[in-house]
């Protein structure tokens, strides 16, 4: 098994889903992401981009959330098999 390249939430394309591997960091932003339910093992999907490309709309735990690209980069995804 080779080590997979690290995939971030921003690497998803509209309509894609993936499983969260880790929230990077332990500052207030990562706490906030976790409070909103972005946790290891959760499935998250990318719904679409704002007209200017940022922020990005996601769906997690049955609700919609908007994250700026810089924030979404704090979410590492599990590599697809």
């Amino acid at each position, binding site marked *: 098994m080779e080590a997979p390249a690290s995939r971030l939430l921003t690497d998803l394309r509209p309509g894609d889903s993936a499983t969260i591997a880790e*929230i990077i960091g*332990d*500052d*207030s*932003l*990562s*706490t*906030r*992401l*976790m*409070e*909103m*339910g972005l*946790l*290891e093992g959760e499935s998250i999907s990318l*719904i*679409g*981009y*704002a*007209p*200017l*490309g*940022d*922020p990005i*709309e996601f769906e997690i*735990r*049955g*609700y*919609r*959330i*908007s*994250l*700026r690209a810089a*924030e979404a980069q704090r979410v590492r995804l599990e590599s697809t098999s």
Partner: protein
Amino acid sequence: MSKSQTSSPETVKPNRKTVALIGNPNTGKSTLFNALSGMKARTGNYPGVTVEKKVGKVVWNHREIDLVDLPGTYSLSPRSPDELVSVDVLLGRQEGVTAVDAVVCIVDASNLERNLYLVSQSLDLGLPTVVVLNMMDVARSKGISVDAEELAKRLKLPVITTEAHRRKNVDIVKQAIADSVERPLRTPESLFPDEFYAEAGQLRDSLRTHKDIDIPQFLAQRLLIDRGGQIEQELTDSSAAGQQIRSDLEAARERLAAANCRVPAIEARVRYGWAREILDGVVTHPAERSASKSDALDRFLTHRVFGLFVFAALMMLVFQTIYTWAGPLMDQIETGQGFVTGLVEGVLQPGPLRSLLVDGIIAGVGGVLIFLPQICLLFLFIATLEDCGYMSRAAFLMDRFMAKLGLSGKSFVPLMSSFACAVPGVMATRVIESRRDRFVTILVAPLMSCSARLPVYLLLIKAFIPEQTLGLGLGLQGTVLFLMYAIGALVAIPVAWGLKKIFFPGETPHFVMELPSYKVPSARVVFDRVYDRGKAFVVRAGTLIFATTIVIWALGYYPGDHSKQYELQRSIVATETILESNPDNAELMKVTLEDLENEYHTVSSELIAGSALGQMGHAIEPAVKPLGWDWRIGVGAIASFPAREVIISTLGTIYSLGGDVDEESEGLMGALRTSKWPDGTNVFNIPVALSIMVFFALCAQCAATLMVIKRETNSWRWPIFSFVYMTVLAYIGAFITYQVGRLWL
């Protein structure tokens, strides 16, 4: 910590109970609050923070219970003094609020898992708790079913389903509240590993030993979990004891990390794990998540072409409404003001009392009420768009653009509204979560060119800017008007940047935002919100605006002997009466009347010149001369402190034309054109006109805006700062305009 005392028990009736209402944003919390308290809430601010304090009364079985509305939040982990307020209220540590006897936690039935996170945190308080399961209708429409009975059994708490905007089951909630305040404290469930509670306990001991303070178990846990949070900041100060606490805290966190209980990550893992367990079998989602209407709508409304088109159309509509359509309503208020003035003038003889009533009190009340149409119309839109779920999409659409200006998408609507009027614009900043973004938006909002500046621009442009074309169908007058509108917005960009650097340094606030499902807005929710904002403005800002008007009236009235002015006023009325009843000598009487009016205007002009205001104008003449102004313009600028457009009527009075002139007045334009310096040269020319316009584009001559800033920031510091920085900016702008303009024009 400073705020550890609870309010003294002797000031409180022993039997009076208090309940706190908490919940995530977008759960219908305010709607439930209104339903429970019957719209009769007392509002205020908590000392030292910008959180609005809202306390209502729940009446049940002839018994009154205080209901404290806490700001909507996703978490009880305080990261700022504002967020600590909610925690302090819940722990009975907040000054001015009696200790809470029970908690009502409202949750969105269509989004239970995330909502239970806050419930889980609040259960650690150990207070009797009622869970209100709101938005059952939305859940049903999404095909989600919730077994409320089973949920109650598992939570061991009363769970009540409601549709708050239809006032459904409100009485059952009231009953549950009345029951809950009689229940004893609960023992919180231990969700975390034992090590965690042991460490929290040791931290409490350490605080007792080193700082001689006893903090509740809840706060010790928060201290342990919230890295860099508000409690850590307050307890680990630079003192020796503070440093001791810091090292104890770091050591505790390291031990926890080693025991696979790393903070802060452990909290979300534990609480979400708990929520999922509780909800397993309680909530049933549809097997195949079908693309709902809300999803389709969302795709359309956030589309890069259609979405922006709809957004632009909506914003145009909002702007049109507050800019233009508020006009007739404002005219009615002015007509009403004129009617009351007429009544007073019919009863009272001219004199100081009448002047105070008419030019001070009635004008002051009118000056407050005149803002109501714009405030109510703006909040009518905001509340509608918010309730149907669109407002967060608007922020989503505009975030990138606003981020380029150093703000977030949530600043767009407040700033856009400020082009009509900064007062509702500043009030609309309440939705901005980040303190930094909110304050910067409040401070630059008054730079947007509002409708009150327009008369000033129009008067001066018509009087001094030649009617010529610049080619391509572009008129010079129109171009100048456009530049005046643009200047404030352009200046706002570096100002916003500078304010952030100087006053709010630190990391960029994050913009993690829930995008709620779309739903049909409820008329009741919208109406309640409009009423609430309108009332808040009149009651809390209105009194200050009113007071300002009285002060400026007094400055323009005293000192001075007004007896001749009153005598002339009486003669004018007498002459008018004769003219009406006896048309025989009409021609002659008209001439007499005109003479009297001219004399009256001359006397009024002399009086204002000699008043405190006039003296101030003379005193500042050396300071405003580099702007090309004489003392009369100086008086106009000071007198317009309550509102910019007042300069027109003030100039009318000073130039002996009476205060009834408006921006269309040919007489006033003529007077300005022929106004002379003592050496015989013209006061007004194009550079002077431009200098005045630039000054009014950038200055803070609007008491209403300043008082609303006071109210929204809960401090005198920010309105004073706004006034000073905008005046300096206006002065520099006018100075450059005049000095450069003099070289060219």
